């Protein structure tokens, strides 16, 4: 450690913030460590559209860590507190209500909020979004059996909500102007198949955007593009993306460009402030990369930020990975399918388990797997280690993928 850092304040107790404090302590940081979070306690977000929304888990069951964990690591956890300003000039952060916390380093782990595009009538209380446990609890209360539910957006969260709502006995309509949502992330063929799952489970899918909402007799009236007649539903959910929380960074004069701009060590334009997780946007070799709004990326950001504060070498990077669950299937993707010039399917597309590998030349650049976690883990190593592969054995389920890694 070149310069000793005495006090670190992490703002935001999502997976990025909790991973930051975990990695600081396991890396030997022995200074004062404070984690400030606006919520009741740090909880995990992916279950909010899955088990939590389905009523199978409560908030305690999705805590990121048990309360004792923070005590054991001498992490001062300040719940239900909002940071209102970051003042690197004063080596402090300011809290709502007037308090301040001294901080030699501040880690912004502030996540983001669900996007609420300006759709006329979109402020009706029956129009929901899903980002927080409160959002999920409100939505869950509305997802009663027989409820007519409109899900707007067929991306990751929209599809999960549609799936959970069907499980709960709702009548679900899913609207997305894109014919194959997620095509960029999983490739055209798999995107089409995944989207097709909805209809097989009784979800009505339409290629349309919402023009307006209005209160009507018997429910919420929805006008969709390309349809003459309005539809009437009981509940609507917008799953149309997230807006990164960058206001603290902007007010502190940090470089912000649709995300808090960081270098490869998560350090912002002010060396005393770092940013991790959903709002962080990396600049590499002068170019701004797109933000990765996935769970594991947030976790790994935290580990990198801790290494930077400790003056250690950053952990090795790996191809980005995410999972999602819909209609009882576990789907995972790794790397960048969009940069592939050909796709090799392993198994039968449409009959899980199966997977698809995106190749560029003789290198794997991305993969998607349905109920086949080994395929994605193998692909990840092929990408990370830049192992050239022959598409013929790759497609052959009789050939073990681990063998291809050993070549």
């Amino acid at each position: 450690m070149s310069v000793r850092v005495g006090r670190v304040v992490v703002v935001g107790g999502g997976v990025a913030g909790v991973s930051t404090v975990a990695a600081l302590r396991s890396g030997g940081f022995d200074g004062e460590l404070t984690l400030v979070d606006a919520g009741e306690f740090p909880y995990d977000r992916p279950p909010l559209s899955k088990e939590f929304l389905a009523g199978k888990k409560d908030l305690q069951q999705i805590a990121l860590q048990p309360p004792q964990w923070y005590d054991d690591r001498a992490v001062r956890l300040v719940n239900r507190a909002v940071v209102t300003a970051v003042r690197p000039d004063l080596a402090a952060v300011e809290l709502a209500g007037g308090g301040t916390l001294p901080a030699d380093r501040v880690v912004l782990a502030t996540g983001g909020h669900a996007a609420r595009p300006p759709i006329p009538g979109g402020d009706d209380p029956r129009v929901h979004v899903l980002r927080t446990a409160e959002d999920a609890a409100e939505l869950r209360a509305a997802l009663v059996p027989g409820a007519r539910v409109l899900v707007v957006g067929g991306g990751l969260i929209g599809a999960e909500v549609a799936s959970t709502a069907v499980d709960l006995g709702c009548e679900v309509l899913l609207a997305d102007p894109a014919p194959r949502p997620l095509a960029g992330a999983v490739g055209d063929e798999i995107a089409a198949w995944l989207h097709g799952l909805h209809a097989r489970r009784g979800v009505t899918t339409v290629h349309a955007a919402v023009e307006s909402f209005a209160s009507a007799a018997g429910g919420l009236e929805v006008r969709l593009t390309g349809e003459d007649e309005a539809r009437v539903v009981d509940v609507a959910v917008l799953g149309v993306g997230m807006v990164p929380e960058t206001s603290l960074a902007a007010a502190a004069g940090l470089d912000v460009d649709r995300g808090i701009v960081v270098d490869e060590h998560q350090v912002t334009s002010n060396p005393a402030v770092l940013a991790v997780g959903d709002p962080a946007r990396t600049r590499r070799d002068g170019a701004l990369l797109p933000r990765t709004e996935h769970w594991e990326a947030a976790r790994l950001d935290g580990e990198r930020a801790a290494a930077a504060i400790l003056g250690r070498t950053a952990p090795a990077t790996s191809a980005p990975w995410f999972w999602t669950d819909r209609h009882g299937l576990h789907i995972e993707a790794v790397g960048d399918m969009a940069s592939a010039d050909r796709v090799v399917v392993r198994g039968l597309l449409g009959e899980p388990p199966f997977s698809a590998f995106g190749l560029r030349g003789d290198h794997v650049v991305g993969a998607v797997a349905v109920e086949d976690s080994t395929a994605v883990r193998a692909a990840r190593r092929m990408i990370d280690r830049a192992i050239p592969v022959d598409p013929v054995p790759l497609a052959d389920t009789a050939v073990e993928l681990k063998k291809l890694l050993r070549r």
Partner: protein
Amino acid sequence: MSSGIRVASLDDIPEGEGIAIDKSVTGTADDIALLRDEDGSVWALDDTCTHEDASLADGWVEGGYVECPLHSSKFCLKSGEVQNLPATKNACPHRVEVRDGEVYLFPNEAP
């Protein structure tokens, strides 16, 4: 000390993979995953991931760890210690012995 339960032949477990042994055989609360590292060594942990319902026997075994097939928490093969979220609890380890190509399990004995 008992001589352990013979649960598998070494050849039944490919390197870098695992198999689950049913709790009716092991007499434990959970099934037990026999996990074979790439160096050939065999380890045993409670099979059900401490996060949700995944079987660790279906995980990716490499370099002293098993990675959960659902959300990729990693567990130390030797100690069961969890390495990263989303799981927060350690997996319970069990002692294993390999004799003459046969795998013997000592349920609930520390490795």
